[in-house]
């Protein structure tokens, strides 16, 4: 893989769709079978319209956005997110990243994540990756 250089201010975008069965698929893959993710009735009891996607799946997508930008998922060193709004089935989530700091061996990116209505689903998301 050719080495590439990064600069503070570099931006990147990654779009993911939460298809109708993604919460069930992610439950199977991750083991997170909290009923709020698979049972619409429980989702409604919790005050939503139905099921909601696992926040950790959204976190995984934010990590994926940075992995694609740096070109290697093995370089991710740290992620921090606040879940500000649930992702619902049929939502499209747009991740927009911006490099905010660079050290000799480390890149820091802020990542925003918004649904198709422009509402943030993550707040203050920061991902760090090893570079060099």
């Amino acid at each position: 893989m050719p080495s590439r250089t990064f600069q503070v201010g570099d931006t990147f975008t990654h779009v993911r769709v939460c298809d109708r069965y993604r919460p069930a698929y992610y439950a199977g893959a991750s083991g997170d079978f909290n009923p709020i993710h698979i049972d619409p009735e429980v989702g409604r009891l919790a005050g939503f319209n139905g099921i909601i996607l696992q926040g950790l799946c959204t976190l995984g997508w934010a990590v994926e956005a940075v992995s694609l930008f740096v070109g290697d998922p093995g370089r991710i060193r740290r992620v921090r997110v606040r879940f500000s709004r649930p992702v619902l089935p049929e939502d499209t989530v747009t991740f927009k990243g911006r490099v905010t700091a660079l050290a000799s061996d480390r890149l820091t990116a802020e990542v925003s994540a918004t649904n198709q209505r422009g509402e943030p689903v993550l707040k203050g998301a920061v991902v760090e990756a090893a570079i060099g």
Partner: protein
Amino acid sequence: MPLDKRFIGRSYGPFTYELGLEKMREFSLILGGSTPRAGTPGAPPAHLSPLLYDEAAAKAGPYGDVIASPSFAVVFAIQPFSAAIADPELGVDMVKLVHGEQELEFLDVMKPGDVLTTTGSITALYDKAGLDFLVVTTESKNPQGQTVVRGVWSAVIRQ
């Protein structure tokens, strides 16, 4: 009623987990957007790094083997957090709980056959404006005692 602050410091674990290739691959494919059907987690989405699922490509790559998606760590490192939430003495009402914040630190890549032991403890418990905040901090170590994943798991519970 606010959660009892005397549970700050209570620890959970150790929980030991052995990483397996098929589970790692399934997680990466599903997170990546594949559509599973009986017998297969589905075809790899085009954007997915082959390091996450293709043994031949990964063996020729920088880590010498398939690696887990970084967030695969939640599959096993969540155990102290879920144990705290289910702790009858702490008495968290699951229906009123949402996952508020998450932090993960990765000190090494994860490969098939790795054995990681996770311990965790309640590092913060406070209430604010009718909400309880529960924070569990975890460390997942390899058999040599080196930390591979650190996690900070925060739940918000309506009182």
